[in-house]
């Protein structure tokens, strides 16, 4: 009984320290990629980062606000030199984990023109968003993001146009 309690306590401690809501299972792609971004920041690391963010800098101040309520940020992004470096099975391994009741697909699109796919999933807990998963693929790119915690998607989206990232404005509708 005591042992079970210890394991339960250890488990809850681990979950506090490691808030990632699904596994990426994409490490095998790192060798094929020309450029890899791998970010794993759990709650304590986010708190540490928040202490070093400059409140006088508008972008950093915004990020600092967004960090409130977040439990972890996990990003894996691969850019490849050639097409075919990643397979749909790689993405399915991630996608299958998002087929549980607590995950809900919010948006998704596929572009046959440029071979791009993108999906946003939200993790619901008691009618509140407490996590986001973003899957984006292009023929030479694969990006998976998991933000655990209370995420404000609009604020996140508003970062387009900041830090030298051009804000994507849809072209005028042709009639």
């Amino acid at each position: 009984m005591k042992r079970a309690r210890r394991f339960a306590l250890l488990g809850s401690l681990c979950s506090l320290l490691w808030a990632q809501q699904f596994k990426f299972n994409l490490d095998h792609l790192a060798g094929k990629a020309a450029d890899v971004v791998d970010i794993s920041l759990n709650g304590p690391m986010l708190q540490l980062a928040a202490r070093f963010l400059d409140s006088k800098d508008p972008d950093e101040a915004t990020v600092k606000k967004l960090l409130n309520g977040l439990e972890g940020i996990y990003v894996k992004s691969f850019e490849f030199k050639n097409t075919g470096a990643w397979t749909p099975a790689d993405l399915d391994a991630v996608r299958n984990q998002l087929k549980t009741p607590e995950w809900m697909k919010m948006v998704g699109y596929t572009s046959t023109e440029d071979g791009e796919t993108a999906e946003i999933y939200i993790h619901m807990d008691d009618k509140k968003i407490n996590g986001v998963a973003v899957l984006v693929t292009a023929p030479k790119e694969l990006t998976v993001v998991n933000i655990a915690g209370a995420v404000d998607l609009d604020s996140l989206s508003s970062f387009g146009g900041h830090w030298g990232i051009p804000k994507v404005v849809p072209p005028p509708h042709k009639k």
Partner: protein
Amino acid sequence: MDWLEQELKQALDRKEPSPDFAERVRRRTRGDGFRTALWPQRWLAAAAAVIVLAGVGLGYREYQGQVARQQVMLAFRIAGAKVNHIQTQVKERMR
């Protein structure tokens, strides 16, 4: 003289110390003095070690914080750009 007096006399008789007694005492006191003289130096060395370790710890914490800050900013750049791109594409398709 009865046996008690004899016992007392024997017990209180003057006894000469062993020939090396003085040397042993001198050696012992010299050793203690040496040890006592080293105490402040040892404390200073320990304090210096603690200060150096604390400095290294703080420096490492600062380094970790800066790395975490950069990673958070990069993560939000990537996530923000992707979400913004998806929203724009979806809006465009919904027109």
